[in-house]
């Protein structure tokens, strides 16, 4: 079985996020996400049923907060405060974002590749397992999207396939 996982196109990401949060979503290709030591955001990984790392997703604070808040209709002011203070103002933002990654993991599954599922979300700045960082560095394919969540703001989402 081949192990080159499908890389979702922007329309697929837009449609799935829109269905999930029930509001307007815009997705466009954008410049790479530059991670500094003090960048606040989230790194998530998808693994095979055998536990092998396959996909790494990185989102900046603004997008984690916007998507996380929109899932359960947390007031937009919490997102704005999070961006202003450069920290997550509510734990639910990150918890909800993890569920969003869990659901969009479907976009990386195909009939011809091993089944993938959501594993974990690591907060930045913070410790990320070396193999996760390594896959991000040595990806087979990568796309970075600018994602706008109607009423909540926008941020970057980077998808790296191993």
């Amino acid at each position, binding site marked *: 079985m081949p192990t080159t996982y499908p890389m979702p196109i922007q329309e697929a990401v837009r449609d799935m996020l829109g269905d*999930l949060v029930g509001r307007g979503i815009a997705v466009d290709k954008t410049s790479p996400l530059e991670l500094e030591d003090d960048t606040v955001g989230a790194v998530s990984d998808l693994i095979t049923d055998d536990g092998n790392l396959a996909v790494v997703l990185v989102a900046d604070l603004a997008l984690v907060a916007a998507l996380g808040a929109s899932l359960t209709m947390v007031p937009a002011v919490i997102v704005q405060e999070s961006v202003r203070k450069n920290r997550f103002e509510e734990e639910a933002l990150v*918890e909800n974002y993890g569920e969003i990654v*869990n659901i969009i993991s479907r976009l990386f599954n195909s009939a011809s590749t091993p*089944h993938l*599922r959501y594993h974990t979300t690591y907060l930045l700045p913070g410790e990320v397992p070396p193999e996760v960082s390594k896959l991000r560095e040595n990806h087979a394919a990568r796309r970075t999207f600018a994602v706008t969540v109607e009423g909540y703001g926008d941020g970057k989402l980077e998808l790296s396939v191993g």
Partner: protein
Amino acid sequence: MKILVVDDSKAMRMIVKRNLSQVPGFGDIETIEAASGAEALELVRGGAAPDLILSDWNMPEMTGIEFLRALRADGVLIPFGFVTSESQPEMRAQGIEAGAAFLLAKPFTPDDFSEILSSMV
């Protein structure tokens, strides 16, 4: 009608409950929640007696399919549906074979939810 909603995501349990309240014909719904298959199994074995179980597939401690198999092994035949990010045909088949009535893939719209659940009223 009493419905047991099983999902390790609090957000998703909330979304499922919100959608349930919009299904025509369901009337008064009482929901009980569990964050894992193990917790849900304990509830049922403890006498919770829901009329319908809606469960995620991938959960820590005990997955949804393990929960369903444990229920059926206990002889519990409460109608059971998966609400999950898993939508691959082989997993759907696995779920149905174990005794699930349906598998609703996340994300779902309120209409998707209504359509599949209205048929169970």
